[in-house]
Each structure stands twice: as structure tokens, then as C-alpha cells.
């Protein structure tokens, strides 16, 4: 094993001085400011980047109203080049419903955490899905209330240690997690429901595909879409940043199982898109 000083490294402080094509800029077009105070290794900016890229790729940004919930990700409500309507904790789906019903030509996307959508706001997302509101709800699921410091939510998995389940979530004391995407997929009003993760580059690519499909569902007026994105929270999980992707794969993704749970636009017999656990 070589010492780091013995490695021959390539210059990375300036663009290449030989002909080269820029294939990815620091931030996507719709992220004005990439700097944020979220923890090292947080999965939420990764998911938000994917969402902003998806909106841009489908050329929807001049019709899009995003409705933000309250959580760590709220930090991004202020620095995206897309219209933002700030809602209260758990209340984005009803606000999104009002916006979409008042302006049916707009694309309305909520961005909420698991604490926001499944704890505080379970009623709101279920009713919006049941009504078949033509909106897209995006849930960043890390199994904790991150912004308040890492407490148990309705999606926290059994055995997961949080500040309000220090010995690990116990079924007797704390009940069992709600698998929100699975719950929503059972509602007749839901048109597209998928769950993915951002703990690997491959999964990030799958997340993007799923987001594109959800946005298309809305753009076509096909009904309610939900994308649940498992994100890393090393702080809330009490793990090192490098261990968080494996923690996600081993603990969250084995309970909140990835895949396309419902797609009314899919042809019969077409295989649902599978998500690897890592």
C-alpha cells in the first residue's frame, strides 16, 4: 500500500487544458447555490439534485410550483431557481392540492421528509392520493426527524436507535414502521408509486428515472404520483458518513423495499423496475 504522498495525482483545480467536453457542472441549472449547512454525507441534497435535473430534463421548470415541507431539506427552499411555496410540517399535500386545482396547467411537486409526510402529515398524503390529485409527492425518507436532531418517526425501522428510541425501536414500546409507498400504492387514486434510494451512483440514476416517470405521470394528467427516496442520515443514525450507504442498504432498504409499486401507465406484463439494495 502506497502512502498518499507517493500517489501520482492529477490536477483538479482548473478545467483541462486539452479539448474536453463539460459533462456535468458543479450544480444543475436549477440549483442556484450549492452551499448548504446540511451534515456531511447527507442524502437529501443528492435527491434534490436529481429532482431538479428531472424537472429541467422534461422542460417543466416554467410550469412548476414546488411545495416544501419542513425539515432539513427546507434549507433548499431558498436557493433553487424554481418557484417555491412553503407549507407547514405535514401540510404540503393540501397546499399542493389547492395550487394545482387553482392552476391545473402547472406542475406541482411536494418535497417532504418522512417525519413530515408520514408522522405529522399522514392524513394529508393519503387523502391527496385517494382523491387522485394530479400532483407529485416526493418523500425524503431517512427514518428520523433530522432537523430537530434525530428522533423516531413513523418510518423508523425496528431496532433503529434514535434519540427517542435509544435502545432501538421496539415493537411493544414504539410500534412498527409505516411503509408509506406500499400504503399509498393500495389506494385506487394513486397512479404511480415508486421507492428508490440515493446510497450509490447506480441508485441515484434509478432515482432520477423514477422521478422522470412520476413527473411524466403528472404532465400527462394521469393522476397522483409518489416517489419515496431513501436518503442517508449519518448524524441521525449515529454512523460514520462512509458507513451510511451500507446502513441504508442493510436496515432501511430491507424494510422499505425499493421498486416501482404501481404504474397504471405501464403495459401489462412489463417488468417493474427493480432497485438493487446497494
Amino acid at each position: 500500500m502506497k502512502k498518499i504522498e507517493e500517489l501520482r495525482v492529477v490536477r483538479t483545480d482548473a478545467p483541462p487544458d486539452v479539448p474536453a467536453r463539460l459533462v456535468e457542472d458543479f450544480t444543475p441549472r436549477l440549483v442556484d447555490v450549492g452551499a448548504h449547512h446540511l451534515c456531511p454525507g447527507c442524502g437529501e441534497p443528492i435527491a434534490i439534485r436529481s429532482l431538479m435535473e428531472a424537472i429541467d430534463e422534461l422542460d417543466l421548470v416554467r410550469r412548476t410550483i414546488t411545495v416544501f415541507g419542513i425539515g432539513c431539506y427546507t434549507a433548499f427552499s431558498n436557493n433553487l431557481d424554481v418557484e417555491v411555496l412553503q407549507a407547514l410540517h405535514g401540510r404540503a399535500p393540501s397546499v399542493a392540492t389547492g395550487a394545482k386545482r387553482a392552476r391545473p396547467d402547472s406542475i406541482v411537486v411536494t418535497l417532504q421528509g418522512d417525519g413530515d409526510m408520514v408522522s405529522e402529515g399522514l392524513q394529508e398524503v393519503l387523502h391527496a392520493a385517494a382523491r387522485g390529485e394530479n400532483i407529485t409527492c416526493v418523500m425524503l425518507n431517512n427514518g428520523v426527524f433530522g432537523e430537530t436532531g434525530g428522533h423516531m418517526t413513523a418510518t423508523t425501522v425496528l431496532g433503529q436507535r434514535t434519540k427517542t428510541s435509544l435502545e432501538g425501536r421496539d415493537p411493544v414500546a414504539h410500534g412498527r414502521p409505516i411503509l408509506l409507498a406500499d400504503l399509498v400504492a393500495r389506494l385506487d387514486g394513486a397512479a404511480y408509486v415508486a421507492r428508490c434510494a440515493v446510497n450509490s451512483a447506480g441508485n441515484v440514476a434509478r432515482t432520477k428515472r423514477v422521478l422522470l416517470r412520476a413527473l411524466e405521470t403528472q404532465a400527462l394528467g394521469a393522476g397522483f404520483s409518489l416517489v419515496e427516496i431513501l436518503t442517508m442520515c449519518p448524524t441521525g443514525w449515529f454512523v460514520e458518513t462512509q458507513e451510511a450507504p451500507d446502513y441504508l442498504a442493510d436496515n432501511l432498504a430491507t424494510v422499505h423495499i425499493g421498486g416501482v409499486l404501481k404504474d397504471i401507465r405501464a403495459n401489462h406484463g412489463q417488468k417493474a423496475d427493480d432497485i438493487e439494495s446497494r
Partner: protein
Amino acid sequence: MGRPVHVRGVAPVTSQRAPGAVSESGTILTRGTVVIDVDACKGCDLCIEACPPGVLVMTTHEVNDRGYRFPLLMAGCTGCRACSQICPDFVFQVYKYETPIQMPAGR
């Protein structure tokens, strides 16, 4: 992008990923490169594992202006954008060379 700050001490580096084949002359075909915003990095290490050819390595004792270790790039980058897609802090700008370059291997 700031100057890395050198801190006392030396430690060996390990990598779990293998870059592309190193030629007999000790070079490796490199298809792309990155620009790294060193001071944006928060040292989370996600890019290291995410890089398919394994050509990113974290500094061990050098830190940026905020006190975080940051990634260095070796030869063999393919411009695949895995690093930029997995990075939570928008550290990477990714380029693909018009013509791939044989570069001296990093290791």
C-alpha cells in the same frame, strides 16, 4: 478552490476499487477528468466508494479551509459522473476528453 493545509503525520491509503488496466509502460487510458471545489467538500467520503474505476482517494492529513479532508484524483477517470451525482455538496465538475489520454498511473 483553496490551498490544502498540510497537517503533521503520514498514513497509508487504501482503496477498495480497482482502476482500469495499467499498461506495461505504467500508463492508464484516461477518458475524463474532474475539477474539485476543495473548500465545498465536507469530507464525507461518498465519492470514493461511488467511483467505479476507483480513481478518487481522500487526503489523509491535508484538510481544506473548513477542516475537512477532500478527494484527490488519479489517472483513469472515465468521466462517468458517479462522483458528481453522489456528492451532497456539489464539489465536482466533470469533463470528458475529446481524445482519451494515456496518463501515468496513480498507484
